[in-house]
């Protein structure tokens, strides 16, 4: 009797579980089309970067690389578009900005989690409130301030603002609230450690996973930022990668199709490498941000 009952229960779900081949095929076809749509543009950049302008003129789409990479590279010589300079500037700015953002956001999040102080809730409410204010709306005042202080062509003005990163403080606080036990902090106090030492040596190591995730997104965000560097940096040797890229639209490259593709490819190459190495963490990080948010 009992056996009959279980088979009866199992039956409808077993039918449901059987895969409908047409339905599955449609799913895979759509997914593969989207996959190609997402990856093909970058492959096209790579392939066209190695082709001559004449080849591109006859057929702009090809899947097979050619052998004009060096020729295309030579086009950039003596021109304003300089990948090496852009790369160096972007690397310096993004690395410093990320380091500052991660460290000071952790510190602020720790202040919001570990201590009971009068203005704490108000301060946190404030951080939540300013989280979504985009940089662009403050740009006029920011530019005028930098201009007055003669700091327009100065990388520091792109690095220092990242000390105050409300969004990151928010995520760091979420993480700390779940993973910091106040007993550890207290036992460090009993051992005579001062608060600053406790944060650097005991709390920061606990925060490593959150710091890694936030560092990736902060770095990419800083690397991709166009607006502020574009209004502040006028000297060519200071320009960042996205500002360099915008030079590729200039008239001097109008007929140098291969060179344009090469320039574009070189600017995405560092990001593609980072992404291929860290994609698992990045995708997990996006999901985590959504759940926490």
């Amino acid at each position, binding site marked *: 009797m009992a056996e009959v009952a279980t088979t009866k229960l199992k039956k409808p*779900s077993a039918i*449901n*579980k059987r*895969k409908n081949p047409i*339905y599955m095929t449609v799913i895979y076809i759509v*997914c593969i089309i*989207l*996959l190609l*749509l*997402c990856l093909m543009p970058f492959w*096209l950049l790579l392939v*066209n970067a190695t082709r001559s302008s004449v080849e*591109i003129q006859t057929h*702009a*789409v090809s899947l097979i690389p050619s052998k004009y990479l060096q020729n295309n590279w030579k086009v950039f010589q003596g021109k304003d578009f300089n990948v090496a300079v852009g790369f160096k500037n972007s690397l310096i700015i993004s690395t410093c900005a990320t380091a500052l953002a991660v460290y*000071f*956001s952790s510190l*602020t999040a720790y*202040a*919001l989690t570990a*201590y009971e*102080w*009068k203005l*704490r809730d108000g301060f946190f409410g404030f951080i*939540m409130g*300013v989280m*979504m*204010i985009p940089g*662009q*709306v403050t740009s*006029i*005042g*920011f530019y*005028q*301030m930098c201009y007055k202080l003669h700091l327009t062509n100065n990388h520091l003005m792109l690095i*220092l*603002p990242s000390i*105050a990163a409300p969004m990151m*403080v928010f995520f760091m606080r979420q993480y700390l609230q779940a993973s910091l036990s106040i007993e550890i902090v207290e036992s460090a106090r009993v051992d005579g450690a001062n*608060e600053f030492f406790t*944060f650097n040596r005991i709390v920061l190591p606990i925060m490593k996973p959150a710091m890694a995730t936030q560092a990736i997104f902060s770095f990419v965000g800083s690397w*991709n930022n*166009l*607006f502020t560097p574009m*209004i502040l940096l006028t000297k060519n040797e200071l320009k960042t990668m*996205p*500002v360099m890229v*915008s030079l590729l*639209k200039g008239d001097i490259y109008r007929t140098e199709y291969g060179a*344009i*593709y090469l320039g*574009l490819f070189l600017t*995405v190459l560092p990001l593609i490498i980072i*992404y291929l190495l860290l994609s*698992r963490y990045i*995708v997990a990080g*996006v*999901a985590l941000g*959504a*759940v926490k948010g």
Partner: protein
Amino acid sequence: MGKKRISYAKWGYIFSIPFVVAFALFTLYPIVYTVFIAFTDLKGAANTTPHLLKDDILKNFKEVLATSQFKQSFGNTWKIWIMNFIPQMGLALLLTAWFTDNRSKIKGQGLFKVAFYMPNIITAATVAIMFNAFFGYPIGPVNDLLIRFHFVDSAQNFLIKKANGQNIVAFIQFWMWFGYTMITLISGVIGIDPSIFEAAEMDGANRVQTFIYVTIPSIRTILLFSLVTSLIGGLNMFDIPLLFLNGGPDNATLTTNVFIYKQAFSGAYLYNRAAAASLIMLCIIVVFSSLLFWLMRDRDAEKAKKLRKQAIKEAKLKAKGVA
């Protein structure tokens, strides 16, 4: 004599100092200064001495709201955002339904997710110029494909048509963001208690019914979160429209941020008007971000606070009763 309790509260203040100082210098002061500039006559390349407007203090705001370019850019911004958001959300929901369906376990999900998210990580400036090259005339990959597969006889100059410009900008935004939205929604679905799905399956609900009546209501909050964050991002659209067609053709892809940039930094140097326009946008964004703030409020903490207040009230009442 009890051991004296040391108060650590001051460290809360000390550790917040760097954030507060940096915020005050690099965000708060620029905002205040932007507000001030919006009420002044500040224009001209090397001009740094603003004077408050004497005759009509709101002149800049009135001028901005009266210019057809600003109105047009405001309309474009919404139009492009809506054209990108609806298909983006639709596709993300569809993919979420497929990928989280435990009855038809899709293989290679990890690869698909990694590929779909990839456009989001690439510099928007590069993406804009890349698409500009793709739609190039007379030589470009899109024209090449269309001719090769005999969709058209001769190369088309897509980018001189207004509608095309807007559609392609919307498509680029869609292309860059559908993977992000999908991952966000999937993570929301994974967070749902699996017993609900089992119950739905037991009741004989099919895939579509399960998704519409069980999954979507359960991820309401995340859907709203995606909507509001996408909207705020959409209102700030800048890199793609600026570098793809420089706001053209005929201002068709001029967004409010591109308008502000052009007013202030691209030849015109009308800082006062640009400041007024950014403040108008700031107000709109504040409205939407307070909506987001309200959506994301910590419901558990709120409940706990209410309970605590109630407990205090009761204790007081009791105390009164005793007295």
